[in-house]
């Protein structure tokens, strides 16, 4: 089982802004005011030292994994959990509690983006470590429980029963919620003919219209 820490993630202002815009608006992203950009920069400075990216992963044969429709074409599957720790989440909550709503929501968006960037980085590190195994095979995009028709409770139970999440300080509640909240669990399929777009397709057909990660209007 691989524990990953001491790696860096990059924050993208455009992605933070995307999380802070009204997803229901038909309009393309408005040009942010200088005041907003300055405030995001200030909050990023506060946030950076509190982001502690960590991850854990393990490789499994896909043959016996369920649900079958997700894993049947895959030879091996990597399960992973990653987090940015609880510190930034706590700071955001503290701001909101004190009525500093604007700063609180910016910190929350930074934390959400940082968690996704951590998942991206962990994904990349895993693929680098497995480069010899992958060779001519195809690799799916990462996909998470709750998405791609992978039931949240079954997927989370599966991943958390197979990985020692305590090693990176992540726990799972009875309602399948990860603590710290800014954590991501995911799977990657590797095989000769895996569905490579699994995990990036589907927002258009998904009912979760308020999802923070929704990429379509």
């Amino acid at each position, binding site marked *: 089982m691989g524990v990953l820490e001491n790696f860096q993630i990059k924050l993208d202002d455009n992605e933070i*802004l995307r999380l*802070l*815009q*009204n*997803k*229901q*608006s*038909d*309009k*393309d*992203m*408005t040009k*942010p*005011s200088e005041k*907003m950009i300055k*405030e995001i920069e200030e909050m990023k400075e506060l946030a950076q030292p509190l982001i502690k990216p960590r991850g854990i992963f393990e490789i499994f044969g896909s043959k016996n994994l369920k649900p079958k429709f997700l894993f049947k074409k895959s030879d091996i599957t990597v399960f992973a959990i990653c987090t940015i720790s609880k510190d930034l989440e706590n700071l*955001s*909550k503290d701001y*909101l509690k004190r*009525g*500093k*709503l*604007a*700063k*609180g*929501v*910016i910190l*929350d*968006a930074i934390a959400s983006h940082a968690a996704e960037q951590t998942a991206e980085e962990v994904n990349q590190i895993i693929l680098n470590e497995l480069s010899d195994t992958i060779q001519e095979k195809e690799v799916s995009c990462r996909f998470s429980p*709750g998405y791609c028709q992978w*039931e*949240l*409770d079954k997927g989370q139970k599966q991943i958390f029963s197979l990985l020692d999440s305590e090693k990176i300080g992540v726990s799972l*509640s*009875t*309602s*399948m*919620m990860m*603590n710290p*909240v800014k954590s991501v669990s995911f799977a990657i399929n590797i095989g000769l003919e895996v569905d490579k777009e699994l995990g990036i397709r589907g927002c258009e057909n998904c*009912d*979760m*219209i*308020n*999802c*923070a990660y929704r990429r379509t209007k």
Partner: protein
Amino acid sequence: MNFADNCKEAILNGNIEAAEKLANKAIEDKIDVNIAIDAFSLAIRKAGDLFEEGEFFLPELMRSAEAMKAAMTIFKPVLMKGKEDRSLGKVVIGTIEGDIHDIGKTLVASMLSAEGFEVYDLGADVPISTFIDKAVEVEAQIICMSALLTTTMIGQKKLIDQLKEKKLRDKFKILIGGAPISKKWVEEIGADGSAENAVSAVKLARKVLGR
């Protein structure tokens, strides 16, 4: 610029200091408190519209809510002294038990409060009985429940079922929200509506109470 224009500018710029100064000046100048608050209310509604239209980012809307709250804090003692009740209604709000997602619910509570609702924010991971007890205790008109997971949204149904069992369902309008909530789910559990963001939640709250 007249008083209303100044209020609009202060709220849309999220300028807390300017909003406080204007509220204090309104009191000093003996402007009718209802007229003064109406000017601020129009401004916060405009901020909501700008967010819905995609002109405002969420922090800009929240800064407007902060400025509105600052002004209302100054008007509150005057309203209490005059025994004036401008409340649009009482709302009990929280994230359902098993769910610790807090921020969406907090933003809805802040916007409801900024627009003039009396809000009782119970926080996150709130047991169903706590929602019901509080709503009965404060004689709320609306219960707002947030759930961010498919595993916790069932709590919204349980609350409505319990209200029915206790023959209390007709006493409250039930509004629900959260990432997995669909129109189908609203109909299935018999809620009175759902909103996709804090601004539309306020509009919905006004609508269900006819305000």
